């Protein structure tokens, strides 16, 4: 697993605008949004619904394209990549953890974790070793043969995290990973993410409403305040 951690900007969102059509209306989600994230940071993005938190995550993860502006990840500008290259880039660099874990119900925990490795040149034995290791890291070794329906919500989310880290992606994008969990399970997941960040140098960007998240993250961005602050800076620059 990667353990590199430096203070160089690792992810840069440069003057990002994002809008989409809703019927005849054009909805602007982000306008000239800037953000830099260093390698090895654990960022919690918080804020009220409808402010574009998940959109931000999707843009960084290459699931969505900005209307304008540039997104650079590890010196690679991803907003210009073709669909095919972007898919490959995601498989190599990004691990996703969703609020609904989206585990395949027909596969046991180990096979679910092994899934992203099907795209790699690893052989069956190597894939199984990686999956075992990932499950061990999230404390789910003893549930490797269980189907998702035989696991609790917290356990399912742990398996989803194991799936996100199994291909040794440097960036974990977590969209409300604790949203469906009780307090105890939520804290366990946050602690697990913090461990992955501290011990394995994973850059984690987490969108959450969980107020406890700030205790685990290295930086918390309150999006509403952050956007207001940016607007003020932009206005200042324009007037001067």
């Amino acid at each position, binding site marked *: 697993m990667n353990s590199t951690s430096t203070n160089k900007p690792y992810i840069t969102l440069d003057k990002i605008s994002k809008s*989409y059509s809703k019927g005849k209306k054009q909805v602007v989600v982000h306008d000239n949004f800037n953000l830099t994230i260093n390698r090895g940071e654990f960022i919690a993005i918080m804020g009220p619904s409808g402010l574009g938190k998940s959109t931000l995550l999707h843009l960084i993860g290459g699931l969505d394209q900005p209307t304008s502006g540039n997104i650079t990840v590890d010196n690679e500008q991803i907003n210009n990549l073709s669909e095919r290259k972007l898919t490959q880039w995601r498989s190599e660099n990004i691990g996703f953890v969703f609020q609904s874990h989206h585990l395949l119900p027909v596969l046991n925990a180990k096979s679910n974790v092994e899934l992203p490795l099907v795209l790699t040149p690893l052989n069956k034995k190597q894939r199984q070793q990686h999956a075992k290791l990932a499950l061990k890291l999230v404390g789910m070794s003893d549930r490797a043969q269980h189907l998702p329906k035989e696991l609790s919500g917290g356990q399912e989310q742990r398996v989803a995290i194991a799936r996100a880290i199994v291909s040794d992606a440097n960036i974990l994008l977590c969209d409300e990973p604790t949203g469906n969990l009780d307090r105890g399970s939520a804290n366990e997941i946050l602690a697990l993410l913090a461990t992955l960040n501290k011990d394995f140098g994973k850059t984690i960007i987490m969108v959450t409403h969980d107020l406890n998240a700030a205790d685990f993250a290295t930086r918390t961005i309150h999006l509403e305040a952050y956007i207001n602050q940016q607007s003020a800076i932009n206005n200042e620059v324009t007037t001067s």
Partner: protein
Amino acid sequence: MNIIQLVWRNSWRKKSRAVLTCASILVAFYLFSLLSAINHAVTNSVSSSSQQRLMTTHKVSITRSLPVNYQQKMASLNSIAQVTYASWFGGFYQNEKNQLAMIAVDHPSYFDLYPQYQLTQTELSQWQRKRDGLIIGQAVADKYGWKKGDNISLSSSIWMNKAGLFDWQFTLVAIYKTKDTATSDKQLFFQHKYFDNARAYASNSASWLISQGNNNTDIDKLMENIDALFNNSAEATRTTTEQVFIKEQAQQFVDMAMVIKLVVIAVFFTLLLIVCNTMMQTNRERLNESAMMKAIGFSSSYLVQQLFLESLLLLTIGAILGCLLANISLVYIAKLFADFLPGIAISTSHYIIVTVLVFIAASVCSLVPAYTIKTLNITNTLGARA
């Protein structure tokens, strides 16, 4: 874990739906295979030489006889190599429920044109010398327990003998063997000479004449020439290849080729509807999973391939079971129709057609899901914009 395992597990995710889909495909291919086997019997049950053998019957109806001296007249044509003749006896054993496929044949020439009925030279000579000699197939011998040398009394539903009886006496001389499964082993043959001498009426006439042209003879021309020979006679003829003759007899009951075509079309569209419906339903249910898989790096083509293989799997299972079941049924059906239509069996070409149909159906059924996957918006599917 690989794509095959994933396809297998996904296919049986909803077991009852998968089983019902397979069952529908099975029924469709079962019917298709049965009809195809019957069609195969109609078109191919007789040996390839049947395309060369010509059947000459009365122009008006097959029930009307032709003079046996037509044999000499036809033999006078330069392009004719051999001519023989035969008559339908309408035989049965003891009561009319025990029908027999029994024909009187011109003993010196008949088996030269039908080498698929295998007899030793000794057996053939013995039979040719024995006026009331009878040759039967193994299935008849087994059914009635007849052995060589047995004196057998058989009846005709058509022909009365000079004694005013419909009962005829025969001596079993030989039991023929068959060259292939397409040849019936339920036939009975006896001498036309004995038939002509003993029957009370219509002697020196035959139900049909069979001829064969010389090598490289233009068959169409030869058929025309034969019929031209008797055009102005009281008993005008109609000559076709034996294959066409058999087809025509079968088509008196049903136009098999048309039925097969209609069934193929019905089967194909039923398959498309069933499997397309299943695959579209499956795809709709798994949109979240497809979006997740795309998010973690699986390409659209991988997911489409997965769906294609799932439909292919269901179709293949259904098709294999359908063909298997048809083969089992055909063992009994072939026995039932052995006298009337020998050689009912599924041909190799049928399996090729089934394979092609399965692939086409799987491809067509993957089209709509493929489009859905290709245009799937990951962010919208996984969760609303926030």
